[in-house]
């Protein structure tokens, strides 16, 4: 029989998701994948909020999640627009191709 999940289980899962997202951001060489990784990180955080909200019998966790989802949607829209603009500029999606803005 599968035991009833505790708060710890959710937090563990969330930490794993967040780590995967972070690793994606740093390791992948494709801007779109990086954006997806950021989404994974955001959802890891969302999971934490919802779990904590349930555990403490509070609705605030869920409210914050709505905010995060809204911001994430906006970020995805803007981020993808920038990615498209960058691609038109350099014919590449590798972030290492865009390093000319420096000293």
């Amino acid at each position, binding site marked *: 029989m599968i035991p009833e999940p505790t708060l710890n289980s959710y937090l563990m899962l969330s930490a794993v998701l967040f780590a995967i997202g*972070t690793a994606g*951001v*740093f390791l992948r060489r494709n801007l779109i994948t990086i954006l997806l990784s950021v989404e994974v990180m955001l959802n890891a955080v969302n999971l934490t909020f919802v779990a904590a909200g349930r555990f403490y019998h509070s609705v605030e966790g869920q409210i914050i999640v709505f905010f995060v989802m809204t911001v994430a949607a906006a970020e995805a829209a803007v981020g993808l627009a920038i990615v498209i603009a960058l691609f038109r500029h350099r014919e590449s999606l590798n*972030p*290492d191709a*865009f*390093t*000319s*803005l*420096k*000293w």
Partner: protein
Amino acid sequence: MLALIPLLPFLGFLFNVTIGRRSSKGVSGGVATAVMALAFGVAVSAVWTMLGSEPIGGVRAVEQTVFSWIASGSLDIALAFRVDPLSSLMILVVTGIGTLIHLYSTAYMHGETDEEFARYFSYLNLFAAFMLVLVLGSSFPVMFIGWEGVGLCSYLLIGFYYTKKSASDAGKKAFIVNRIGDFGFILGMLSLFWLFGTLDFQGIAAGAAALPVEATMGVLTVSTLLLFLGATGKSAQLPLYVWLPDAMEGPTPVSALIHAATMVTAGVYMIGRNAVLFSHAPITLEVVAVVGCLTALMAGTIGLVQNDIKRVLAYSTVSQLGYMFLAMGVGAFAGGIFHLYTHAFFKALLFLGSGAVIHALHGEQDMRHMGGLKNELPVTYYTFLIGTLAIAGVPLLSGFFSKDEILWQTFAHGHTVLWALAILTAFLTATYMFRLLYMTFFGTRRTPAHAHAGGDSAHAAHGHGGGHAHGAHLHDAPPAMAIALVVLAVGSVAAGYVGIPNAIVHGGNRIEAYLEPSFRAPGAAEAVTAEAPAAEAHHDTGTEMALMLFSTLVALAGIGVATMVFLRAPERATAIAAQFGGLHRTLLNKYYVDEIYDAAIVQPIRKISSGVLWRGVDAGLIDGTVNAVGLVVRGWSAVLRRLQTGSVRAYAMSVFVGTVAILGYYLWR
């Protein structure tokens, strides 16, 4: 009503800097003269009101507070004006003679362009406004407004022909030398505030009267000495007289207004205004008397050999101012102010007369090129003669009464040495003034045939284009100038009769009785007045008459010497000059005072400025510090900018590492 007196010339100034620039000479000059005449009218009615008022504490006075100017803690300075006997005399002199000089200027400056003409009159009006603030102010700060304002206007007016280097230099010199005096004036003012807690003249007089007379160097002595330093700057006394002779670079009516009738008397007026204060500092008075006497003598000797007509008059002004300070120093405040008042008439007359000569000769100022103008310029000659007789101290003219009063007071107060020097100065005055008269108006014309036809003199710049053929009839003063000359000549004769020595007519010295309340502490009324006539009775009438006779003889002797040497035998003057070559050169070079100042003060300051302050402090220290700061920032930036790689993932990594570090710190601490 009192505020109207300085306000009217100020409105004239505003008119002439705005609309006047674009209007004709008649309008700008007319407005400038009219506001002065109006101010004179208001001044007369103000004095009338003052005379009709009930005396408060023995002094008749009219006061007006315009507004509260500075109010801070216990300090409350109102912009307030006050007319008492002393300032009433001053406002009448300033507005009255000022009006005449404005009138004269409308003719004298007629050769200027419309714009320059308006500029000239705007300065002249502004000057009169500040001078009136100076004499009407009822406290030190208000007086100081005028004090600084006339300094500014003298700079503007002396440097009026600013395209000429010597004129603009002379303006700067006057300004800088005056600043040195002002520095003393401000310090004196501050120490008086520290001492009395007020800057109002009445308050200071009351406070000083309550203090004992200082026998040694004390606060009163120091602060009055500082004030006197201010007076030496403004009134051209040793050691700060050097600006006045150079100030002759300005237009001649300016010399008459500033350097005869008004500004230079500010120092004398300031001491008279604070008579109670200065009386409590006998050491200062001693210094004032000695400085005044030495200045009078020194300027008199220099005046004896100068060849520029205006410079002779300039040194004579310095010398006469020395007389006034001598009178102040021996405690004869009324005598000093009396001489100020008569001097305003005859010195303005002499300056304007010399202006008429210069005008007629198209800018020629060197007396060696004049001569024989007596018949050609009759109006100028006769008025000038009256002025010369007055300043020389010939009996029955104004200068005689006032100068004799000073000499007598000096003697009566026991300053025999100073009296002897003053008598010597009186002799010199008569001599150099008649030398001036003879060289200018007598003998034969010494103008070189080509001199003014070519208009080579710098002053011809203002003149009539030099178009007159040589030998043509010279034009005497035009009507506007002639009116001013004649009125001043009448004044030079009549002005003295308000102060007939008591030895001749008992109670004849009305001006002293009139001014006397101004020199008393407020409240100290009846006791002192009762004492004064008693002291008067002490005057030995016989001695006074004898001294008067003696000084008259001295004046006549001076005239006689001048007649013998400069009229009868001009070659004798050259011979004497050659005989005393060294002395003559020293006098001609004004005792080398300018050279000494240059070597002792100006050159060291230049050396220190360029060697130490510029190359050392400014270029080395200040620039060095600023450059070093820049270099350090640059160096660090060169290292730190390596961090900005442009790589988005590097930035993200640094954000991540930073977040982890901060969170780690809080979780594991």
